[in-house]
């Protein structure tokens, strides 16, 4: 899903040509299960395609979990008062088996994809540092950025774009 964006907000610049219009698009793909039998988490591959200068290159792939997006949503809600941020999709408290069922994972993946692209296509939220952190920082840094209550004992990895 590619989203094009009008430049600026009410500025009187001449319109940019389509190739230099800022764009930021994200794909949530390939769920993967990390952890062990007792403590397991579903992570997704998050592929970002962009021409924004603040981002590290045109394409980057990272792995993130559902809760990372929940934290992003909460931070944006705090920092961008006055802008309607997509509501949190309910964090369902249900049996563990459901959490790891293919359907549940697929549903979450789709919800995250819609959510993050709504943020990415909003002219102001697009600039947010929290969004950039989520989409760009390497997994080691991300591990440390997660709240202490969420220390996950996982073997994680740094994905590479092919």
């Amino acid at each position, binding site marked *: 899903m590619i989203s094009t964006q009008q430049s600026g907000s009410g500025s009187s610049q001449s319109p940019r040509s389509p190739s230099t219009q800022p764009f930021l698009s994200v794909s949530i793909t390939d769920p993967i299960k*990390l952890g062990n039998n007792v403590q397991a988490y579903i992570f997704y591959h998050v592929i970002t395609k962009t021409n924004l200068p603040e981002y590290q290159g045109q394409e980057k792939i990272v792995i993130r979990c559902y809760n990372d997006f929940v934290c992003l949503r909460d931070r944006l809600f705090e920092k961008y008062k006055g802008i309607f941020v997509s509501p949190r999709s309910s964090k369902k408290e249900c049996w563990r088996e459901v959490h790891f069922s293919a359907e549940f994972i697929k549903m979450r993946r789709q919800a995250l994809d819609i959510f993050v692209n709504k943020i990415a296509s909003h002219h102001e939220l697009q600039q947010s540092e929290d969004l950039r952190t989520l989409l760009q920082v390497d997994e080691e840094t991300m591990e440390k950025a997660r709240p202490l209550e969420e220390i996950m*004992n996982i*073997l*994680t990895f740094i994905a*590479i774009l092919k």
Partner: protein
Amino acid sequence: MNYLIGAFKPSCNISITFADGKSRKQVPIKKENGQTVMVPLFQSQENISGKISIEPLQGKKVEHNGVKIELLGQIEMYFDRGNFYDFTSLVRELDVPGEIYERKTYPFEFSTVEMPYETYNGVNVRLRYVLKVTISRGYGGSIVEYQDFVVRNYTPPPEINTSIKMEVGIEDCLHIEFEYNKSKYHLKDVIIGKIYFLLVRIKIKNMDLEIRRRESTGSGANTHVETETLAKFELMDGAPVRGESIPIRLFLSPYELTPTHRNINNKFSVKYYLNLVLVDEEDRRYFKQQEITVYRLPETS
């Protein structure tokens, strides 16, 4: 030697000596100017005593509004350079206002000094202890002399020291069980453990164990973290198979570790992590970080 830069020549020599200077252990520290000097080593609750000698130069007399010595424990944040936070401050008045014409010596003593934090020299923060002598003068500006000393505190071996044993993996791809013999290690300890491969469906080319130090300063939204990899030790070269066990034997003494510091005076923390890293044929890195506690064992002399 105290120096006054510019036209003014120093009017006196101040020397600070410790009572047990000859017998006390000295350790090297690096000064601001890059020079390494030897300074005495103390631990918390010790007495710090000695003498101050003030000697006027070139026959001049030194008029002053009082002489005092302070023992300061300071934390300095590098982004706030020059701004010292004193967590400990003790003072002894040595002399009332007067004049010094010839060499005068003052004894000083600080008894059973509480120095709960160790000397620490880090990337973004340092903690130091210093004796500061001040000859107060109005118009001429006070004359100040410093003497650093180092504080190290010791912990007895922990009564409980459980091993760290965990299974982690990536479903259908790689499952390992890692084990480290302890969760708390002293500075000259050795990490003994193993990595057991339960499932290997990727082609691994090597595995390393890193020791990383994380220094965090500030708090809340203003937390700044510096991570340094202090050691990188190759555990395995080549592709392991399911059922294979790789031993770990890593001596800590060659590395510049310090004890774990947790929330020192609410200003900084220093923590250590073992980072197990596996690299596959496509250069993808898989890792598992595990915190360990490092402590300083009393030295057996």
